[in-house]
Protein backbone atom coordinates (compact mmCIF):
# COMPACT_ATOMS: atom_id res chain seq x y z
CA UNK A 1 0.00 0.00 0.00
CA UNK A 2 2.66 2.48 1.00
CA UNK A 3 6.40 2.25 0.92
CA UNK A 4 8.13 1.20 4.10
CA UNK A 5 9.54 4.16 5.97
CA UNK A 6 13.16 4.11 6.98
CA UNK A 7 13.78 3.09 10.56
CA UNK A 8 16.71 4.84 12.24
CA UNK A 9 19.57 2.43 13.01
CA UNK A 10 20.18 1.21 16.52
CA UNK A 11 23.57 1.88 18.06
CA UNK A 12 25.35 0.72 21.15
CA UNK A 13 28.84 1.22 22.58
CA UNK A 14 30.68 -0.52 25.32
CA UNK A 15 34.30 -0.27 26.51
CA UNK A 16 35.87 -3.41 27.89
CA UNK A 17 39.12 -3.94 29.81
CA UNK A 18 40.65 -6.37 27.36
CA UNK A 19 42.98 -6.12 24.36
CA UNK A 20 41.38 -5.79 20.94
CA UNK A 21 42.34 -9.30 19.75
CA UNK A 22 40.83 -10.94 22.77
CA UNK A 23 37.73 -8.77 22.59
CA UNK A 24 37.14 -9.67 18.95
CA UNK A 25 37.67 -13.34 19.75
CA UNK A 26 35.22 -13.28 22.64
CA UNK A 27 32.61 -11.63 20.42
CA UNK A 28 33.01 -14.13 17.59
CA UNK A 29 34.60 -17.45 18.60
CA UNK A 30 32.82 -17.43 21.96
CA UNK A 31 29.58 -15.85 20.77
CA UNK A 32 27.48 -18.54 22.42
CA UNK A 33 29.11 -17.99 25.80
CA UNK A 34 27.72 -14.50 26.28
CA UNK A 35 24.63 -14.11 24.09
CA UNK A 36 21.55 -14.01 26.38
CA UNK A 37 19.99 -17.43 25.81
CA UNK A 38 16.42 -16.13 26.05
CA UNK A 39 16.83 -14.36 22.71
CA UNK A 40 16.49 -17.18 20.25
CA UNK A 41 14.07 -18.30 17.55
CA UNK A 42 14.12 -22.10 17.58
CA UNK A 43 11.35 -24.25 19.01
CA UNK A 44 13.85 -25.95 21.28
CA UNK A 45 15.69 -24.22 24.10
CA UNK A 46 18.94 -22.74 22.81
CA UNK A 47 22.07 -24.72 23.63
CA UNK A 48 24.45 -22.30 21.99
CA UNK A 49 24.82 -19.84 19.12
CA UNK A 50 27.62 -19.94 16.60
CA UNK A 51 29.20 -17.30 14.40
CA UNK A 52 31.41 -18.97 11.81
CA UNK A 53 34.72 -17.08 11.67
CA UNK A 54 34.96 -16.25 7.96
CA UNK A 55 33.45 -14.19 5.17
CA UNK A 56 30.21 -15.90 4.17
CA UNK A 57 30.09 -17.88 7.41
CA UNK A 58 26.80 -18.87 8.98
CA UNK A 59 25.40 -17.28 12.13
CA UNK A 60 23.01 -19.65 13.80
CA UNK A 61 21.67 -21.14 16.98
CA UNK A 62 21.77 -24.76 18.05
CA UNK A 63 18.92 -26.12 20.12
CA UNK A 64 19.29 -28.55 22.99
CA UNK A 65 17.74 -31.18 20.68
CA UNK A 66 20.46 -30.59 18.07
CA UNK A 67 18.22 -28.56 15.73
CA UNK A 68 19.71 -25.50 14.00
CA UNK A 69 18.16 -22.15 13.09
CA UNK A 70 19.95 -19.60 10.93
CA UNK A 71 20.10 -15.97 12.05
CA UNK A 72 22.23 -14.49 9.28
CA UNK A 73 25.53 -14.52 7.42
CA UNK A 74 28.97 -12.96 7.85
CA UNK A 75 29.35 -10.18 5.25
CA UNK A 76 32.64 -8.66 6.40
CA UNK A 77 35.29 -10.51 8.36
CA UNK A 78 38.20 -8.23 9.30
CA UNK A 79 39.68 -9.47 12.57
CA UNK A 80 40.27 -7.93 15.01
CA UNK A 81 38.69 -4.62 14.03
CA UNK A 82 35.49 -5.03 12.08
CA UNK A 83 32.66 -7.45 11.60
CA UNK A 84 29.45 -7.14 9.58
CA UNK A 85 26.75 -9.77 9.80
CA UNK A 86 23.20 -9.90 8.52
CA UNK A 87 20.25 -10.29 10.86
CA UNK A 88 17.58 -12.06 8.86
CA UNK A 89 15.00 -12.67 11.54
CA UNK A 90 11.76 -11.27 10.22
CA UNK A 91 8.48 -10.10 11.69
CA UNK A 92 7.26 -13.68 11.96
CA UNK A 93 10.33 -14.29 14.07
CA UNK A 94 11.73 -16.67 11.50
CA UNK A 95 14.82 -16.72 9.35
CA UNK A 96 14.15 -15.04 6.00
CA UNK A 97 16.65 -16.28 3.38
CA UNK A 98 15.91 -13.37 1.00
CA UNK A 99 18.97 -11.07 1.07
CA UNK A 100 16.67 -8.14 0.18
CA UNK A 101 15.06 -8.55 3.59
CA UNK A 102 18.33 -8.72 5.52
CA UNK A 103 19.16 -6.08 8.10
CA UNK A 104 22.84 -5.57 8.95
CA UNK A 105 24.85 -5.40 12.13
CA UNK A 106 28.26 -3.77 11.99
CA UNK A 107 30.59 -4.12 14.96
CA UNK A 108 33.81 -2.11 15.22
CA UNK A 109 36.56 -2.89 17.72
CA UNK A 110 38.91 0.02 18.44
CA UNK A 111 41.85 -0.14 20.87
CA UNK A 112 41.57 2.43 23.64
CA UNK A 113 45.07 1.63 24.85
CA UNK A 114 46.79 -1.77 25.07
CA UNK A 115 44.35 -3.24 27.58
CA UNK A 116 41.12 -1.56 26.61
CA UNK A 117 38.83 -1.84 23.61
CA UNK A 118 35.85 0.21 22.52
CA UNK A 119 33.14 -1.84 20.84
CA UNK A 120 30.64 0.04 18.70
CA UNK A 121 27.63 -1.72 17.30
CA UNK A 122 25.17 -0.52 14.67
CA UNK A 123 22.07 -2.44 13.65
CA UNK A 124 20.85 -0.86 10.41
CA UNK A 125 18.41 -1.33 7.52
CA UNK A 126 15.78 -2.40 10.04
CA UNK A 127 13.06 -1.45 7.56
CA UNK A 128 14.11 -4.39 5.40
CA UNK A 129 12.88 -6.71 8.14
CA UNK A 130 9.51 -5.12 8.16
CA UNK A 131 7.67 -6.98 5.54
CA UNK A 132 4.85 -4.76 6.77
CA UNK A 133 2.03 -7.19 6.26
CA UNK A 134 3.83 -10.05 7.92
CA UNK A 135 4.71 -7.91 10.89
CA UNK A 136 1.14 -6.70 11.31
CA UNK A 137 -0.19 -10.23 11.15
CA UNK A 138 2.49 -11.42 13.50
CA UNK A 139 1.55 -8.95 16.17
CA UNK A 140 -2.19 -9.11 15.71
CA UNK A 141 -2.37 -12.84 15.25
CA UNK A 142 -0.54 -13.61 18.41
CA UNK A 143 2.47 -15.17 16.69
CA UNK A 144 5.77 -13.60 15.71
CA UNK A 145 6.79 -10.64 17.80
CA UNK A 146 3.87 -10.99 20.09
CA UNK A 147 4.83 -14.53 21.03
CA UNK A 148 8.44 -13.55 21.34
CA UNK A 149 7.64 -10.63 23.58
CA UNK A 150 5.56 -12.92 25.71
CA UNK A 151 8.53 -15.21 26.06
CA UNK A 152 10.68 -12.22 26.85
CA UNK A 153 8.21 -10.97 29.43
CA UNK A 154 8.24 -14.34 31.17
CA UNK A 155 12.00 -14.48 31.15
CA UNK A 156 12.25 -10.96 32.52
CA UNK A 157 9.71 -11.76 35.22
CA UNK A 158 11.60 -14.87 36.26
CA UNK A 159 14.71 -12.81 36.85
CA UNK A 160 13.03 -10.64 39.47
Amino acid at each position, binding site marked *: MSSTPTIPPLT*GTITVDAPVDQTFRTFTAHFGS*WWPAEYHIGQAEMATAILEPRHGGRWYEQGVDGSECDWGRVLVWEPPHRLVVTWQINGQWQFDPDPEHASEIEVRFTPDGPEQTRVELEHRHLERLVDGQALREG*IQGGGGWSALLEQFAKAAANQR
Partner: protein
Amino acid sequence: MLGDPTRRAIFELLARHPSTVGELAQQLPITRSAVSQHLRVLKDGGLVISQAQGTRRIYRLNPEGVTALRAYLDRVWAEALTAFGKAAQTAPTDSEQEEP
Protein backbone atom coordinates in the same frame (compact mmCIF):
# COMPACT_ATOMS: atom_id res chain seq x y z
CA MET B 1 11.84 4.95 26.36
CA LEU B 2 11.89 1.35 27.62
CA GLY B 3 14.83 2.16 29.88
CA ASP B 4 12.26 3.08 32.52
CA PRO B 5 11.42 -0.19 34.33
CA THR B 6 7.76 0.66 34.84
CA ARG B 7 7.27 1.56 31.20
CA ARG B 8 9.01 -1.65 30.19
CA ALA B 9 6.69 -3.61 32.48
CA ILE B 10 3.66 -1.95 30.87
CA PHE B 11 5.06 -2.65 27.40
CA GLU B 12 5.57 -6.30 28.30
CA LEU B 13 2.09 -6.64 29.78
CA LEU B 14 0.58 -5.16 26.63
CA ALA B 15 2.67 -7.53 24.54
CA ARG B 16 0.89 -10.37 26.33
CA HIS B 17 -2.56 -8.93 25.87
CA PRO B 18 -4.26 -5.64 25.16
CA SER B 19 -5.51 -4.07 28.39
CA THR B 20 -7.27 -1.11 29.95
CA VAL B 21 -5.60 1.31 32.35
CA GLY B 22 -7.40 -0.40 35.24
CA GLU B 23 -6.23 -3.86 34.22
CA LEU B 24 -2.66 -2.63 34.00
CA ALA B 25 -2.85 -0.87 37.35
CA GLN B 26 -4.05 -4.11 39.01
CA GLN B 27 -0.87 -5.85 37.93
CA LEU B 28 1.53 -3.09 38.88
CA PRO B 29 2.42 -1.39 42.15
CA ILE B 30 1.40 2.03 40.84
CA THR B 31 -1.77 4.10 40.61
CA ARG B 32 -4.06 4.34 37.61
CA SER B 33 -2.99 7.90 36.99
CA ALA B 34 0.68 6.84 36.98
CA VAL B 35 -0.20 4.10 34.48
CA SER B 36 -1.95 6.69 32.32
CA GLN B 37 1.09 8.93 32.37
CA HIS B 38 3.37 6.12 31.24
CA LEU B 39 0.89 5.11 28.54
CA ARG B 40 0.89 8.65 27.23
CA VAL B 41 4.68 8.51 26.84
CA LEU B 42 4.47 5.13 25.10
CA LYS B 43 1.75 6.44 22.79
CA ASP B 44 3.70 9.57 21.94
CA GLY B 45 6.67 7.33 21.17
CA GLY B 46 4.58 5.25 18.77
CA LEU B 47 4.95 2.01 20.69
CA VAL B 48 1.38 1.79 21.84
CA ILE B 49 -2.02 2.69 20.39
CA SER B 50 -5.45 2.86 22.02
CA GLN B 51 -8.91 2.04 20.77
CA ALA B 52 -12.29 2.83 22.28
CA GLN B 53 -14.40 -0.25 22.84
CA GLY B 54 -17.77 0.82 24.19
CA THR B 55 -16.98 2.76 27.33
CA ARG B 56 -13.59 1.14 27.70
CA ARG B 57 -10.32 2.24 26.18
CA ILE B 58 -8.07 -0.64 25.23
CA TYR B 59 -4.32 -0.19 24.92
CA ARG B 60 -2.22 -2.44 22.73
CA LEU B 61 1.19 -2.48 21.05
CA ASN B 62 1.26 -0.50 17.83
CA PRO B 63 0.34 -3.10 15.20
CA GLU B 64 2.44 -1.32 12.60
CA GLY B 65 5.18 -2.72 14.72
CA VAL B 66 8.00 -0.66 13.31
CA THR B 67 8.70 1.32 16.42
CA ALA B 68 7.90 -1.59 18.68
CA LEU B 69 10.32 -3.77 16.75
CA ARG B 70 13.04 -1.18 17.00
CA ALA B 71 12.42 -0.62 20.70
CA TYR B 72 12.48 -4.34 21.27
CA LEU B 73 15.76 -4.85 19.42
CA ASP B 74 17.17 -1.91 21.33
CA ARG B 75 16.54 -3.86 24.55
CA VAL B 76 18.06 -6.99 23.06
CA TRP B 77 21.28 -5.18 22.17
CA ALA B 78 21.50 -3.32 25.46
CA GLU B 79 21.33 -6.63 27.31
CA ALA B 80 23.56 -8.47 24.87
CA LEU B 81 26.30 -5.82 25.00
CA THR B 82 26.24 -5.76 28.79
CA ALA B 83 26.59 -9.54 28.84
CA PHE B 84 29.34 -9.31 26.25
CA GLY B 85 31.23 -6.70 28.27
CA LYS B 86 31.30 -9.01 31.26
CA ALA B 87 32.40 -11.99 29.17
CA ALA B 88 35.12 -10.04 27.37
CA GLN B 89 36.68 -8.94 30.64
CA THR B 90 36.66 -12.33 32.26
CA ALA B 91 37.58 -14.43 29.22
CA PRO B 92 40.87 -16.28 29.61
CA THR B 93 43.25 -15.19 26.89
CA ASP B 94 43.32 -18.41 24.97
CA SER B 95 41.11 -21.17 26.24
CA GLU B 96 38.02 -22.78 24.86
CA GLN B 97 34.80 -21.66 26.46
CA GLU B 98 32.33 -23.82 24.65
CA GLU B 99 28.93 -24.41 26.12
CA PRO B 100 28.51 -27.66 28.02
